[in-house]
């Protein structure tokens, strides 16, 4: 309990500070000016999406190995937060791209790969929705999760290879090349902030899933006890005759 509150406070404080830093402390970028500041949330979100999906991978592995339900809770928590982070990347990307490149979207390697990543883990979440038996849901989504994670490097690599064969219309002047040290610091703050936020969200989602599971268990027990009581009554009556 205390840990969660502390984490929530830390995340909130860091995010507020990071927001302030991104808007006011960070120096103005030469060519892109104000819009470039979105980079301070775009990049950390992308990194955190990967971290979240890696957590899902570990959780999937652990579930198949131990069959302990808690790994399944971690898996779904990580996947949901990962998809949320990826969504932020996919939204902030075009917002940034439009004034800078003149287009909302381009099928360059990184954007395409991120889109596929988003699709993969959205599929993971949808799969869970369509499976009813809890054990099967956990097992099958773990298998799919592992397949998805194995696919991620293949997706990025194939897109890279493809796009270098077909030069893209706009060249992404490496956003990390020659980074101003102050920008680097703001980026770091923002990264830590988003990371804390991500950890907090995963922890909370995990807790929510655990509570849901416990609730289902309690409800089931209450219902079966009620059914037993109901069945006993007529039998007792028959015995008395």
């Amino acid at each position, binding site marked *: 309990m205390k840990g969660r509150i502390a984490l929530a406070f830390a995340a909130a404080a860091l995010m507020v500070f990071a927001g302030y830093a991104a808007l006011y402390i960070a120096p103005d970028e030469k060519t892109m000016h104000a819009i470039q500041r979105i980079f301070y949330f775009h990049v950390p979100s992308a990194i955190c999406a990967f971290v979240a999906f890696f957590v899902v991978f570990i959780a999937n592995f652990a579930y198949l190995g131990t069959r302990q339900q808690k790994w399944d809770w971690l898996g779904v928590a990580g996947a949901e937060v990962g998809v949320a982070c990826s969504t932020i990347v996919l939204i902030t990307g075009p917002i940034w791209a439009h004034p800078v490149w003149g287009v909302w979207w381009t099928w360059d390697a990184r954007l395409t790969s991120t889109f596929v990543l988003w699709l993969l883990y959205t*599929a993971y979440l949808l799969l869970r929705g*369509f499976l009813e038996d809890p054990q099967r849901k956990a097992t*099958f989504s773990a298998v799919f999760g592992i*397949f998805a994670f*194995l696919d991620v490097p*293949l997706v990025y690599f194939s897109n890279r290879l493809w796009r270098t064969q077909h030069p893209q219309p706009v060249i992404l002047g490496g956003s990390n090349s020659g980074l101003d040290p102050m920008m680097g610091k703001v980026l770091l703050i923002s990264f830590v902030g988003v990371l804390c936020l991500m950890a907090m969200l995963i922890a909370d989602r995990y807790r929510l899933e655990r509570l849901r599971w416990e609730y289902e268990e309690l409800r089931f027990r209450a219902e079966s006890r009620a059914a037993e009581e109901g069945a006993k009554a007529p039998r007792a009556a028959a015995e008395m005759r």
Partner: protein
Amino acid sequence: MTTARAATILLGKELQLEFRTRELLTTTVIFALVVVVLFSFAFEPTAAESRRYGPGLLWIAFLFAGSLMLNPSFAREQANETLDALRMAPIAPFAILLGKMLANFIFLAMAEAILVPVFAVLYNVSFSGVAGRLIFVLALGTFGLVITGTVFSAISAHARMRELLLPLLLLPILTPLLIASVEATASLLVDQPELDRTWVAFLAGFDIVFLTASWLMCDYLLEE
């Protein structure tokens, strides 16, 4: 009994079943043809455009047809719970999966054998001189499709809305395969056709990675 032998026996059973009903094959071929024709309404392909977009169209047609065709693979076993009978037999669990993968490969390959010539005719694309290499690329790509598709059909057989779920799971996973297959096929359609080694190696790598993953996780796929 070795896994290979058991898989062959089960392959025979799958082929027997399919040739008895023939539903799968005819539906797959017709559907793929429909897709190919529909694409022609989207744009009027000149010879140069056909060579540029052709491989993409072809592989998309295979992907869609394939993902429809893979569902019955495990769904068929549910009627009388025959999968239980297979699981109780003294054979390796992977043999069950492998038998179905091989069967699906053969079915899809047969559909492709019809589709590629039809496509060549409709879109004025010539495959002469590269037939052997084309078959090689088709085989690698189809194998990757079938490996992942069979695994996911085992998963979706137990889920609601399985016809929709299977493509939903399969297509994102297969994007690298699609890129590689299309590029490798395209490299055979240029004036100086030469099989792109990088993409072929990538395809082979994709197949190996997912075949290994399937083998490692087959127990979880088949358990009750």
